[in-house]
């Protein structure tokens, strides 16, 4: 059965937002940030083309592997760390309960 999951997002002003969303919400992390107005990101609409939704994963969750497109974009971005991901490529599901992310600085 689907239930709510908790996601913690720290914005660029270092403010942490705790969100509770249905695990079957059908959104990716970028869309969640936009719809909850935490941060405006994803100029390209979420196809790993603009790199405006870079986040750092700060919890131990096992995420799906990066696609080649995502890796190529991360190669070109600034402020990239080993835990960098593009929020648009992270689809929310019940395995992500307790996920903690921090939004990377603006490019």
């Amino acid at each position, binding site marked *: 059965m689907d239930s709510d999951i908790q996601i913690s997002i720290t914005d660029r002003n270092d403010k942490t937002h705790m969100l509770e969303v249905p695990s079957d919400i059908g959104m990716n992390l970028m869309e969640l940030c936009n719809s909850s107005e935490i941060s405006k990101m994803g100029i390209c609409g979420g196809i790993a083309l603009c790199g405006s939704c870079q986040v750092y994963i700060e919890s131990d969750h096992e995420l799906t592997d990066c696609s080649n497109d995502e890796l190529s974009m991360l*190669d070109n971005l600034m402020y990239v760390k080993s835990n960098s991901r593009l929020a648009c490529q992270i689809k929310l599901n019940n395995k992500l309960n307790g996920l903690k992310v921090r939004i990377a600085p603006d490019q």
Partner: protein
Amino acid sequence: MKIFNTDIAIVGAGPCGLFSVFEAGLLGLKCHLIDSLPVAGGQLSEIYPKKPIYDIPGIPEILAGDLIKNLMLQIAPFNPSFTLGETVIGLSKKEDGKFELETNQNSVIRSKVVAIAGGLGNFEPRKPQIENLIQYENCGVDYIIKDPEKYRNKKVVISGGGDSALDWAIYLTEVANQVTLIHRRTGFRGAPESVSKVMRLVQQKKIDLITNAEVNKLIGNSHLTNIEIKIDNSETISKSLDFFIPLFGLVPKLGPIATWGLNIDKQAIEVNTLDYSTNSKGIFAIGDINTYPGKLKLILCGFHEATLMVQSAYRIIHEGKDPSFKYTTVTGIKGIN
């Protein structure tokens, strides 16, 4: 100063801008397209030319680059004019009711109608975080290679690991006196044939490859003369050069469009879905750059928007006269006027 007079000035030469030329052409209207990229096609040419698109009606699958080639063929009978590699920086309305668009390289385009088909916005180079980078822009630092001859017999350092960095490093070995390629990691994710070509040129000592490295300081007077390169996050080496070319891809930004007095919501221009007009009479916005309830950022929706837009553009240009509606099956592409 180059001056162009046209019926519709189209800002952005992506698929929607290009298709507007066709629909305008059927109504006997002339178009001039301006794009900051040096080639037509917008993100389809610049970002994903080799990616297949599956939702163009009647075409089960087409590469983005091929769609642009086809659009260029489709609009060729209407002889559009282009200003490519220049960015529109100013838009003003003159006393005669015409708009005047001004580019960053002093081109001026005059028209009764402006259609903004700017896609995701201006593609601006992603700039690396180096303290005094801006100081050397156009004095040794280039983000886009417009004319490779500029680098003939020069010492060039390219930074980046994508296709663009690899392809230019390969190309410039035939032109420059010395080519150095600096990449943050050891592996490259560019096209495999480009990667192996670079590796061959490294073996032949035609490219000096420095990996796990980043440029962290620029040195010079009026022109860049040296850079400092940090390797493995510890050792720093200095290198003399004539040009530093960081190639980290392009990032879309709304750019000067944001200052033209148009209603903007979340980096997009608000339009009336009747004809995709903006709050400023005579200025329309089509494709990914506009927003309205139910908006979908799809090429096929942009084509529809372009088609309705030129109907209203016709009425403005012909002072209230309605265009007559004909099918291309009846009139061919000669147009209706």
